[in-house]
């Protein structure tokens, strides 16, 4: 599935798993995605866990949208898209992706305490292992783009911009929700980050208009 040229029945359920490290802004990103889907007229459910998991642990947020959604949880092997804010977390959750689905992974490494303390090794073949699951692996320099957009903290909006090109939803809905969700002073910067994320898809995927 590429850009906005979806051939899929728009009313079928689409599952997007967002993964990363506690503190990376995963919950804000999934909130924006869910509200965009809602505004596009879909039924939406989103699930995440608070508490212990947020102290730098591995965090996921499940977003499901379609005509009618029952389960708030995505089933293993059925996610259409995995959006990972960190490389190791992409690999940790890849088994949720359907075969041939899309991976969008932020080119960022955060060592877990098991690695920094020397008891485990950070894998050096993450992208290759992701490709075993699907050919559609998109490595995004989210931090570099965010810094160029004006602030490191816009990295989640850069990634959402990239993601937006893979979903059959009008970009104006995204812009509207982002404008309402991020702090007022940062709206222009975040909208700029969103566009930079979108542009990157067209730079890397030839078939964009």
């Amino acid at each position, binding site marked *: 599935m590429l850009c906005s040229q979806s051939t899929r029945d728009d009313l079928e359920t689409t599952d997007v798993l967002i993964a990363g490290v506690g503190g990376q802004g995963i919950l804000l990103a999934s909130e924006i995605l869910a509200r965009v889907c809602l505004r596009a007229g879909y039924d939406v459910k989103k699930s*995440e866990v*608070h508490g*212990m998991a947020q*102290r730098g642990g591995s965090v996921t947020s499940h977003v499901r949208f379609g005509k009618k959604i029952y389960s*708030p949880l995505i089933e*293993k*092997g059925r996610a259409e898209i995995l959006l990972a804010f960190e490389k190791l977390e992409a690999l940790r959750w890849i*088994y949720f992706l359907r075969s041939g689905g899309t991976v969008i992974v932020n080119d960022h490494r955060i060592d877990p305490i098991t690695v920094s303390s*020397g008891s485990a090794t950070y894998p050096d073949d993450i992208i290759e292992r992701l490709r075993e699951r699907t050919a559609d692996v998109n490595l995004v320099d989210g931090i570099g783009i965010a810094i160029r957009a004006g602030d490191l903290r816009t990295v989640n909006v850069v990634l959402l911009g990239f993601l937006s090109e893979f979903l059959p939803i009008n970009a104006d809905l995204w812009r509207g929700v982002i404008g309402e969700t991020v702090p007022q002073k940062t709206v222009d910067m975040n909208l700029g980050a969103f566009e930079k994320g979108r542009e990157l898809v067209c730079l890397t995927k030839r078939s964009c208009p």
Partner: protein
Amino acid sequence: MIEFLSGNEAIARGAFEAGVRVATAYPGTPSTEILENIAKYDGIQAQWSPNEKVALEVAIGASLAGARALVAMKHVGLNVAADPLMTISYVGPKGGLVVISADDPGMHSSQNEQDNRYYAKFAGVPMLEPSDSQEAKDFVRSAFEISSEFATPVLVRMTTRVCHSKGVVRLGETCNSPSMGYEKDVRKNVMVPAHARLRHLALEERRKRLEEYAERSPLNRTQMGDLSLGIITSGVAYQYSKEVFPDASFLKLGLTNPIPKGIIQRFAEKVARILVIEELEPFLEEQIRALGIEVVGKERIPRVGELSPDTIRSAILSSVAYSENPSSSLPARPPVLCPGCPHRGVFYVLRKLKFTVTGDIGCYTLAALPPLNAMDTCICMGASIGAALGMEKALGPEISGKTVAVIGDSTFIHSGITGLIDAVYNRSNITIIILDNNTTAMTGHQDHPGTGRTLKGEPTVSLDLEALARAVGLRSVRIVDPYDLDATEKAIREEVLKDRPSVIIARHPCVLLTKERYPTPKVDTEVCTGCKLCLRLGCPAISISEGKAEVDPFLCNGCGICAQVCRVHAMISGRT
């Protein structure tokens, strides 16, 4: 009007629509956001109580005064509040009284995964189980209607996935429920034996009326589909089951105590085979089997952990193909104490001293994990102090020289105070370290009686931990800053040797709250020997790169503990 709400936000909205006047809670995952959201409604008196027992008692008082009252807690909180629950069921509220129990199947953030549905049977109160955010809101209103009609407290049983999943909710109007006012009624409200015997009879009569009500309640819904398979389910398990068996016939129970026996029997007559799909214990299954109905249940559906569409699919249907979880071979990413966490210094010292540490519930429980490995027990809120006292009683007073209890400020106020009194009263020598970060951090920084602020943000009297310890008879009470490792170690070494109980208050506010920040320590790579001693702090900001210590300036808050730990002085703290 529609909104996109979590189950907890929906409960708060339901409380508003139901005309709740008083709402209380003690924070606990996954229930915390219920009161945080109720507090946003001006017309509701919302408060944090020191613990769940007090929270329920306040709600009981409000309901006896004729107002609608709601109390929220996590599942283990209801253990603390079980005492008033069992007897308010006899008394019955005057205004409506609803108790929200947020269970945590899968133990995302809890010490056990007890199934609180048994409390409804135990206390003889009706129970509702919402399966999504819309029902969470609607069922609160229904719960108050049942509470008012039958003069009973009502339990609303939530689970983590209902609490923390968001969905579309159609809002309703708020209803006006003015307080009916207090009326003295000694025979109903004073539970001395002679009165309580009569009230138990009243409870049994109420139970019969509720059984009749269950048969006509709109909360129980039958959806006939394929008659070869009938599924009886409740809560979020309904949503999962609909996903896996979209064509089956369903009996979805919203009111799960008492169960609607007639509806279940009629459903069973129509379908060829019955599956009971419920999370945790066979609560419904055993009652349905007792009706003489054959079902498939816990012999297939796991009794342990959280359900999901995956677990149901693989438990019931054979030849399910989904990928195995490969993540077991990957480096784990466990939650850790944050960079700059003031608890870290205390546990580093305790580990260094090789002490036995009885622990408690909070962020600091993470110190039990590697590399700190500095905790020996964790049972429930407040248990650290009693456990240390019990060890001393079993092993003799000499073990007090190498044993401490650690407990957070919020947990100490919740249920540590009585343990402290026990230690003084029973002539113990134990040392108790109160980890005072001036907040309830683990659940997301809620205020408590020691912070000087209420849930509504009003200034209030701040509990003085030092004065409290002295008032219950402690003669050794001292305060240390856990950012100062030498002072912390000295205090612990001295206090454990005293032949009387001691309290050390390790006081430093949570850095997530204060955003306290100093320059990142510099590592002198010429001096660093790569000994990795600093890694024993378990600080996420510190790693070893090319054989030398490295500090990540984005993560580091500059607390400087690593510089104090370094034996060769290769780390130069930015704090002055």
